[in-house]
């Protein structure tokens, strides 16, 4: 179907990051991971070309890593294919890939299955990039976007390397039990999973496996 292949081709072109873009994105990811809970922004011109959650792997992956793109995206494009072609990365299943992107939602089981590496080889722990609807620093008492002011959200408290004392962030679009699952996975430190949360807006927060995550509040949809 020519329409589909045109979309795919256009998506592939959009998904290719040039060396400067890759470097800028890397610096944001580094900053986010080194300072968990501090909000960082993906460069707008890149984050608007593709689903923002894909930007990290488009910047960092190549034919020497395996990637898994899980979940659907409203655009209907086969983003897993786009990533494979644009970066050369090999495609893998979520439980074995070095980089896993969740475009929509995940379950605690999904997180528990991710590769964690070992104490002898912590570098084999998966890098997870999880899309979310919104990200806010603090307790989430600020006004939400008018889109869905009563969206379910979770507030988590962060402590650990890179965090002076503690930080709180509020996330809409990822359930509390997923964060609890992530916490459990990372109890096997130095094995573990390193995570970036990427909001639709291109906002980015890093959660390395060293970050202690505690769910302090959660609201269900429609609740204040």
């Amino acid at each position, binding site marked *: 179907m020519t329409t589909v292949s045109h979309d795919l081709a256009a998506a592939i072109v959009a998904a290719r990051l040039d060396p400067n873009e890759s470097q800028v994105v890397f610096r944001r990811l580094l900053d986010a991971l080194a*300072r968990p809970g501090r909000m960082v922004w993906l460069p707008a011109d890149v984050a608007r070309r593709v689903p923002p959650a894909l930007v990290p792997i488009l910047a960092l992956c190549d034919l020497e890593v395996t990637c898994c793109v899980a979940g659907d995206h409203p655009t209907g494009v086969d983003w897993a294919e786009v990533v494979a072609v644009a970066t050369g990365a090999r495609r893998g299943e979520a439980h074995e890939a070095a980089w896993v992107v969740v475009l929509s939602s995940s379950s605690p089981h999904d997180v528990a299955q991710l590769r964690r590496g070992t*104490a002898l080889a912590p*570098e084999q722990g998966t890098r997870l990039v999880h899309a979310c609807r919104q990200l806010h620093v603090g307790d989430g008492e600020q006004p939400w976007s008018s889109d869905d002011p009563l969206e379910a959200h979770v507030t988590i408290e962060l402590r650990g390397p890179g965090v002076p004392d503690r930080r709180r962030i509020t996330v809409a679009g990822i359930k509390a039990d997923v964060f609890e699952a992530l916490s459990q996975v990372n109890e096997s430190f130095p094995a573990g999973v390193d995570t970036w949360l990427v909001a639709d807006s291109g906002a980015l927060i890093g959660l390395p496996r060293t970050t202690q995550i505690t769910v302090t509040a959660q609201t269900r949809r429609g609740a204040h």
Partner: protein
Amino acid sequence: MTLADVLPEASPTPSGGVPTSLPPLLDEHAKREIRRTILTAVAVPGYQVPFGSREMPVARGWGSGGLQVTLAVVGSGDTVKVIDQGDDAGVNAVNLRRLITASTGANESTVPEESTIIQSRHRIPEDELRSDHIVVLQVPVPEPLRGVERDQRELARMHAEADYAKMWVSLYEDKVRNGVITQTTGYPCLVDGRYVIATTPIPRWDIPRLHQAPFLTLFGAGREKRIYAVPPHTDVEPLTFTDVPFEVERTPGATCATCGSDRSFLVEVPAATGSRWVCSDSDWCRRRQKAQGHD
């Protein structure tokens, strides 16, 4: 063709960056691999992450690891300071700095406040550094347990299991034999209560700077093919005993002959008439001296 033929005149550069004058020293895949390694290093503070260290225009042992880390991190909007023993003008520092700026278009400065990335062999600048600084330390030997264990597999196990008993015994024996712990530079430190690291040969003077720093510190060992990191706001504690205080280098009464400082790391200038001391951080000293001239 030499680098001299392609370099622009050495002069203060505008914030727009100098035009690139050398082709990139690393291909894009190499940079991506090093970047992925750096992220792992930050996620597991103090763990020596193996990577496919590439050969660089500087020899192994001369900063090829620090250079790879800087080249992976730097962008044309960065300003790079490069020092060796604290000196921007040391020939090796100059060589590294021009390789970086000429191949990436980054700016250069000797002043930490104007810089964003500081690559250093064996010193941390005396200036207070900011949260947006990245310090890249050149590492000759990344293995802190090298003196107590030679077998690679056993070393890997010790780090994996946080079994540092042999290190502690060695420090104890050192204290008993010599009356003090005789570790000179590169003092072994515990990062985030978990991994022991080789703090490169930075002097003990600089060790406290790593603890709960506002900046990120990356360690590049090109020959040994390892990268490790200390994230900002992370505990870095020198290994010592509760009743044996950690000692920095101090020579009572010594002050810098140029700027008069007694609160910077000083190095000795031997002379027939008796030693003088000067700041190892030459740019810090220069600025201090300049500021005093205006009094």
